[in-house]
């Protein structure tokens, strides 16, 4: 009885939930893209070309510390995106009977959540560069920079393809 009332309430507000979901989807998907492609990427490429250049190393460290901070918006949006996604699922009655929805569930559970979990760790938890700098552990700081750069480089093709595909699934519902 309660569950049915809840479903009715959600169905009544479906378009509002969808609007909120889209706003968080946009923040999650693109809030770091300018910082990555126009600042972090050229700075890291510059450092890779001249790994002993002290100015380039200092710039690299500064950029990565700022990027950790810059990922906050994305990481606030992601859990809210998941919550509004579940609400939309309940409101619209989607199930894995819909192929596009089953595919989207798979992407969320097996691609987005693992990537974001690692990203939270790298940007805000154990590998937050500002915290590592404050701890004075320069070796660990350097390892964190390398790990974070590997993570960004490897996840870039995944992010480009899977987020584009997720948007396509949600909008076109092709199968």
């Amino acid at each position, binding site marked *: 009885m309660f569950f049915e009332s809840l479903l009715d309430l959600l169905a009544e507000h479906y378009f509002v939930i969808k609007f909120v979901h889209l706003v968080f989807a946009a923040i999650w998907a693109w809030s770091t893209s300018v910082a990555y492609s126009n600042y972090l*990427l050229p700075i*890291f*490429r510059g*450092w*890779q*070309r001249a*790994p*002993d250049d*002290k100015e380039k*190393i*200092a710039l*690299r*460290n500064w950029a990565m510390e700022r990027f950790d901070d810059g990922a906050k918006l994305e990481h606030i949006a992601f859990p809210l995106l998941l919550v509004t996604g579940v609400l939309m699922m309940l409101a619209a009655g989607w*199930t*894995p*009977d819909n*192929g596009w929805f*089953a*595919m989207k*569930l*798979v*992407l969320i*559970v*097996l*691609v987005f959540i693992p990537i974001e979990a690692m990203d939270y760790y790298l940007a805000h938890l154990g590998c937050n560069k500002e915290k590592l*700098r404050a701890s*004075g552990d*320069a*070796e660990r*700081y*350097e390892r964190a*920079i*390398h790990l974070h*750069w590997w993570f960004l*480089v*490897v996840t*870039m*093709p*995944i992010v*480009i*393809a899977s987020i584009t595909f997720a948007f396509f699934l949600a909008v076109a519902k092709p199968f």
Partner: protein
Amino acid sequence: MTDRHAPDPFIAAARPFNARARDVNLIALALGLYIFIVLFPAYAFLRIWWTGELAVLSFANIFTAIVIGCLFGLFARALIRHTLGIRKP
């Protein structure tokens, strides 16, 4: 008082980023295989579990998963090599 001319330990600890073409090839292979070995079976399992139909395991679907896995592996390899500045030998 802090010595402003003392070397920054976070700069002194920096070391070059060593990315080998072989590592990138393995990463791209793993990413391509992930689609075929993990994502597609998970999707198929979910569909079969929910609908009880085996149509998802059709030849066309399996072939599509293989092709997408291969194309994605190649895309990932090209993008990672480009980002890391790894040139053709």
